[in-house]
């Protein structure tokens, strides 16, 4: 089952640029939460703060509290431990090019020293099924390289790889933006099905996508969280004028 994440007073910088200002956002468990907003509004930065990927940038800085359950992910645990519990799917599919499909999915476990062959086989199969990719690749799991799949398949492979380490939260940073509509639809279907086991946070440019998959939506603008409410309310009766302007297409 997934857990919720509670973000309080989160501020983030890239060097001197103040990228996120005082974000307060409770992310509910076992739901999909969408984050929308124009380019450069900070939604990707925010999501990268949730699994401490933001700090891989040498000039990055984070202040504030991000709690998962009763653990502060910045103070109580190391980044490596956080990322095993909060997984991430990136905008562009990035399977490991030197590894087979099997090895890609198993990589999260193998690279952490896990060696039990039988369990690995089962984990790989389950993850590929969860990612709705199993039937398409089960014949050449070990023969085909991860990079030889189509774009949509690669992204589902990355999802399977992220699921294989059994995280509690899955962060998705515009997972379908580089894909064609058919693959996009498949990914959205996936998110539906995954919701019951994981907490999902999805960053998206596509408002219709947010409306389709998420229970809650947050609207970011210029590094601030302008509004956070149920998806239905955001899209039919937004409380803030700026939200309304964005949704109706006046900017962004």
């Amino acid at each position, binding site marked *: 089952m997934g857990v919720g994440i509670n973000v309080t007073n989160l501020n983030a910088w890239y060097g001197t640029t103040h990228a996120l200002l005082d974000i307060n956002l409770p992310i509910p468990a076992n739901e999909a939460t969408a984050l929308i907003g124009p380019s450069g509004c900070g939604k990707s930065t925010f999501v990268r703060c949730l699994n401490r990927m933001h700090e891989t940038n040498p000039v990055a800085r984070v202040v504030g509290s991000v709690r998962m359950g009763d653990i502060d992910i910045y103070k109580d645990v190391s980044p490596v431990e956080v990322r095993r519990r909060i997984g991430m799917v990136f905008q562009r599919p990035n399977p490991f090019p030197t590894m087979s499909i099997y090895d890609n999915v198993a990589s999260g476990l193998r690279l952490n020293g896990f060696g039990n062959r039988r369990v690995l086989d089962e*984990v790989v199969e*389950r993850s590929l*099924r969860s990612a709705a990719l199993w039937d398409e690749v089960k014949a050449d799991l070990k023969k085909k390289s991860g990079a030889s799949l189509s774009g949509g398949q690669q992204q589902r492979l990355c999802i399977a790889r992220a699921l294989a380490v*059994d995280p509690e939260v899955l962060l998705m940073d515009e997972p379908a933006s580089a894909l064609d509509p058919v693959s996009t639809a498949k990914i959205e279907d996936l998110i539906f099905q995954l919701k*019951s*086991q994981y907490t999902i946070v999805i960053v998206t440019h596509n408002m219709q996508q947010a*409306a389709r998959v998420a229970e809650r939506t947050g609207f970011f603008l210029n590094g601030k969280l302008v509004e956070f409410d149920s998806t239905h309310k955001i899209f*039919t009766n937004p409380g803030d004028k700026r939200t309304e302007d964005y949704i109706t297409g006046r900017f962004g």
Partner: protein
Amino acid sequence: MPGPFETPSPVTEKPGGPQPGGELSTVRKYLQARGNSALADKGFRWLMILCALSIFAIVALICTELVLRSQLTIAKFGIKFFFGSAWDPVNGNFGALPFVYGTLVSSIVSLIIAVPLAVGVAVFITEMCPRMLRGILAFLTELLAAIPSVVYGLWAVFVLVPILREHVNPILIKLLGWSGLFAEPNFGIGMLAAGIILAIMILPIISSLTREVMSAVPNTQREAVLALGATRWEMIRMGVLRNARIGIVGSIILGLGRALGETMAVTMVIGNSPQIMKNLLAPGYSMASVIANEFSEASDDMYRSALIEIGLALFLVTIVVNGLARLLVWAVTRGAPPRSA
């Protein structure tokens, strides 16, 4: 797919995700027990730093050894070591001028021969050559760089030297003997032979670097000159060579650096005679060659110290020359310094 504002329809297919108490919570347990690897990360980082610093340690060691073991002659002769022309190990009298002279002259001769040819080849490959030939020619010039020094020496001893002795030198003596640079006795081996074989060896370096800096000149420069009605040669001269001249000078200096330190081929054809003569056909001696020839036989500490001091001088000179060259080439190509041959 449910529409935008409808509640999602119930999931029809079992997703096959984690089951309570199944394999995947084994995974979760395993990963949680793994810890944060901070120690391993730190250890890894320090191991890499150590290896990187070992390079520094190696250079420092080389430097200190050279300095320490040449103390005897440094103390006894001081800077006059490099101006004395008498090399007399038997009587403990060491003057390194013949070797400095030999290294300089052979290097200069090699540059005089190699630079025009190398630039010519570079110009041909970069600007004039049909596209198909480009790869092959570039490959062949790089192959010249791969031939070991001792193989060049072997070929020089048995092929180049006889040709020089029998065919080339007599003509040189006849035509240019008045300058004093070409005179009898004509053994074939000597400064000229060393200069020629050195030229062949440094050619690929100068050529490939020149090609690189020429390629780094943007096409807009070439087009601008052509648009003014220039011929192809004028375009090359004004649009490319002029812009690349700093880098070309850098590549020449790099070639010089290589020539200064070159040992085996030179040792085999220079004649190994510590004398300073204007005659290019006379045998000479270079700094690298005297070390190669006499180091194993150096019986006393003073003798060895003299040879090591020559080595130290060679070391310092090549550092300066190479450093200067890289600075110039980097300034033009504005990237990481290119691979040396």
